């Protein structure tokens, strides 16, 4: 029962995190359009994560989003996957997707990247977004069980330490 409670907490935290993450991505161009200096901070926050090329990004309020189309797709996919998570997995389950499933969802984004990288083709932003979306959907099915296991592991570590100290 306690595990389920902790798992539910991890799930809620993940869901809240991705909503805030996506909110910041959209907030950057909005703030820039309102001439608020805060936009600099938000664009800078996402710059290590994404090349932020305007030609590869969607525009809103006349300015590019804080991440490119592919990254946006990955984060929206993550949100979609997190939304689906309770309907597909039990919170207490640490089961992970099959390797084949991971390979299948990775294939479109890998092919798209390779084609662009080798200059075989140049995909439009909506396609970059779509391949990212497909890939991103599977990620919460790794992230949430992983974080639950990490939390349990840390708790076990603390308990073991307490027993050791008491026995001394």
């Amino acid at each position: 029962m306690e595990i389920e409670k902790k798992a539910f907490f991890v799930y809620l935290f993940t869901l809240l995190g991705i909503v805030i993450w996506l909110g910041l991505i959209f907030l950057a161009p909005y703030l820039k359009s309102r001439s608020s200096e805060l936009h600099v901070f938000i664009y800078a926050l996402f710059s290590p994560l994404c090349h932020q090329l305007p030609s590869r990004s969607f525009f809103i309020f006349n300015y590019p989003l804080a991440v490119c189309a592919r990254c946006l797709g990955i984060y929206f996919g993550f949100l979609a996957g997190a939304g689906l998570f309770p309907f597909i997995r039990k919170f207490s389950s640490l089961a992970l997707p099959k390797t084949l499933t991971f390979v299948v969802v990775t294939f479109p984004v890998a092919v798209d990247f390779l084609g662009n990288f080798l200059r075989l083709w140049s995909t439009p932003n909506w396609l970059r977004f779509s391949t990212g979306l497909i890939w991103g959907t599977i990620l919460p099915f790794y992230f949430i069980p992983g974080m639950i296991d990490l939390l349990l592991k840390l708790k076990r570590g603390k308990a073991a330490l307490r027993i050791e100290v008491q026995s001394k």
Partner: protein
Amino acid sequence: MNNQRPNLFVPALIGGAVAGALSSIPFFNCLCCIWIIGGSMLAAYLLVKDSSVVLSIGDGAIVGVLTGIVAAVVHSFIDIPLRPLMREFFQNMMKWAGEYMEEMPSTWEGWFEGGLSVFGFFLRLIASAIFFSILGALGGIIGISLFGRKTPPRTQGTSDVSQDTGDRQP
């Protein structure tokens, strides 16, 4: 029988260096955050390869977080000399795009203004470390799921952690 926990730092250093470098170098960085996930998967692979015990997905998350921190440091330092070059490249690209596009945002010239102060550098480093750690944890978990041993070898020890690392469906 050797059932000692493997050293997490060497795989994290290798994975972090690879991920940090590839996510900074122009043209290679078009995969953005995926490099950090990939670097952590590499770290998880190296961890599994050197480990005589069955590792849990929590172990993958830990090595992933460490990889993310290393990647953030590498990325931040590589970024210092590359930043002025990239700014010039983007400005030229936008000028070129402006010749072919009918409507360009009116204030695009301002997008590339501003240098990097010491405060800015540390702020970016801290932000990178937090974001890269999250993505690194994800990569480490995926790595353990893909490369991790599902059952302990007969002659070697097992870890005290759960073995929920396999391809299991509910």
